[in-house]
């Protein structure tokens, strides 16, 4: 009985079909595979298109209307959006469309650089620190030193650093970016370290290590892709945080100086007037910040899904 059942279950394979391990399609490599997967994701494509549109308008938006961003017109103050002024005008009669896109250049630059530094410094420091912790005396020391550096950078009042930089260098957008970059990545480093601490105790990391995979490869191929979701979310929050940090500096007289605009300073300027019904003063800069975040979120979610084979269909 048992024997016949086995005979039925296990039969020799048809010799013609024995070559089952033939690779049916060419191996694509991680980046090509990711790219194809992102392209198939509609929300991700929408995010990418939005992001490109915002960058495009930041470059060409001010040139699309006959008003420059700092051109005042005292007979045309506080106009609501119209055919003439698409986003309305502010209290000095400056065209809000032109200001919004000119401000986009400053804010996007600050936001993108902050995100980039977060990605490079935050992920490397957090990744190395988390991976080395608990790995012998040297490992403990690496983690200890890196985390103490993080604490020191977070502990020094950054306003002092901003003022110091403004004394050494010329005040301007570069100075603001450097000042924000010095401490901006600290949160990312702490979060990535926490994630790596948790992930590296998983069995697949042990397996990879025992098979002789090098430390950098374990970090980049096994650990970081598994924290991608958290990295991307943190990046999408870094951008508005940096934009508002710049607004705070401007509020204190240390940021972008008038007549130049940024989304942060425009939001800030709207503070006094939104309650009197001039909604467009707040709406357009805040809406653009929200759109940038949405675009990043949607695109980022797509990349995250593409990098995670379990989420692939």
């Amino acid at each position, binding site marked *: 009985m048992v024997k016949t059942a086995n005979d039925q279950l296990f039969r020799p394979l048809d010799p013609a079909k024995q070559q089952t391990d033939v690779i049916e399609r060419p191996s694509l490599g991680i980046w090509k595979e990711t790219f194809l997967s992102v392209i198939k994701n509609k929300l991700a494509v929408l995010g990418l298109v939005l992001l490109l549109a915002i960058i495009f308008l930041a470059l060409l938006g001010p040139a699309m209307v006959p008003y420059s961003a700092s051109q005042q017109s005292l007979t045309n103050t506080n106009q609501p959006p119209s055919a003439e002024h698409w986003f309305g005008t502010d209290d000095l009669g400056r065209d809000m469309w032109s200001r919004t896109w000119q401000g986009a250049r400053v804010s996007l630059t600050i936001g993108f650089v902050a995100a980039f530094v977060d990605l490079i410094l935050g992920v490397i420091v957090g990744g190395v620190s988390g991976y080395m*912790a*608990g*790995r*012998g*005396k040297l490992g*403990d020391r690496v*983690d*200890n030193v890196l*985390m*103490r550096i993080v*604490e*020191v950078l*977070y*502990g*020094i*009042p950054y*306003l*002092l*650093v901003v*003022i*110091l930089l403004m*004394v050494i260098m010329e005040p301007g957008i570069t100075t603001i970016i450097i000042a924000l970059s010095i401490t901006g990545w*600290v*949160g990312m480093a*702490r*979060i990535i*370290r*926490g*994630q790596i*601490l*948790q992930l590296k*105790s998983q069995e697949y990391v042990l397996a990879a290590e025992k098979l002789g995979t090098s430390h950098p490869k374990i970090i980049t191929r096994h650990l970081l892709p*598994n924290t991608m*979701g*958290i990295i991307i*979310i943190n990046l*999408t*929050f870094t951008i*508005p945080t940096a934009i*508002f940090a710049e*607004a705070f500096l401007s*509020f*204190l007289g240390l940021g972008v100086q008038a007549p130049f605009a940024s989304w942060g300073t425009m*939001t*800030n300027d*709207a*503070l006094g007037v*939104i*309650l009197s019904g001039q909604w467009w003063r*707040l709406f357009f800069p*805040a*809406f653009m*910040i*929200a759109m940038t*975040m*949405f675009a990043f*979120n949607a695109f980022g979610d797509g990349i*995250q899904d593409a990098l995670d084979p*379990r*989420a692939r269909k």
Partner: protein
Amino acid sequence: MYIVKRFITMLVTIWVIASLTFLIMKLIPGDPFASDADVLPEEVVENMRAKYNLDEPIPVQYVLYLKNLAMLDLGPSIQSETRTVNDLLAAGFPASATLGIQAIIVALIFGLLLGIIAALNHNKFLDYASMVFAIVGISVPSFILAPLLINFFAVKWGILPVASWGSFQHSVLPTLALAVTPLAVVARFMRSSMLEVMNQNYIKTADAKGLSSFKIVVSHGIRNAILPVVSFIGPLFVALITGTFVIEKIFAIPGIGKYFVDSIFNRDYPVIMGTTVFFSTILVVTLFLIDISYRFIDPRIKLTSKGD
């Protein structure tokens, strides 16, 4: 032994932060008596400088400062002449801390709930709604949200009082204004990491052996997913309980947030140093506690090779 070692490391970290801050502070130009020097006789200004040891060479000032710091004396404030920095911090910290702790609690409770609900309804209406809320929540910063809250809750509807401090009712609106952005971030982190965890095999096992979904989410899901939120909360907690300049200003709260900014613009050296040392102390202690908490959340985590 480990605790002792960590304690010494903390002291060293605070000392490094204090020294670097002292150095930067002395590097930037400016003088706390710049405005007095125009109206007062030279001798008076000289005397005032002597009172704060500003007539000494900078290395001597540094050593004197550290000596006082070792005895937990943060020195006299230059701006408010009759009060010491210890007085200023002691008077303002309770208000700032109350507000910060309330904001963190609100952000945690509602952020976690929102994130979990979004993850359990992946790609459904509630998920998208929470994403929209998170994006709006962080695109409208607290300094814009605060006047809007005041306008509706206090001016138009008259439900809550503002512009003074004392009762719980006074703290509701500033708490909300402070909590919205962290709430949004917590929700996004929790959603992402919850999605990851709910995909794991042990969740399927728990489901297969007949555990209720509530129990699966609470005892297997949340505990494994909460780590990024805990990491994120650490620095944020420190920033919030030491007061926020903008919110305290808008709501007229007698906290310590203003000293962090005003002292720098007034070159009120003892207050700059005092706020920095105070902030750093809370920072290193909080981050230490966060590290310790990792072990309780996930016992597999090893922070040092000795197994601590």
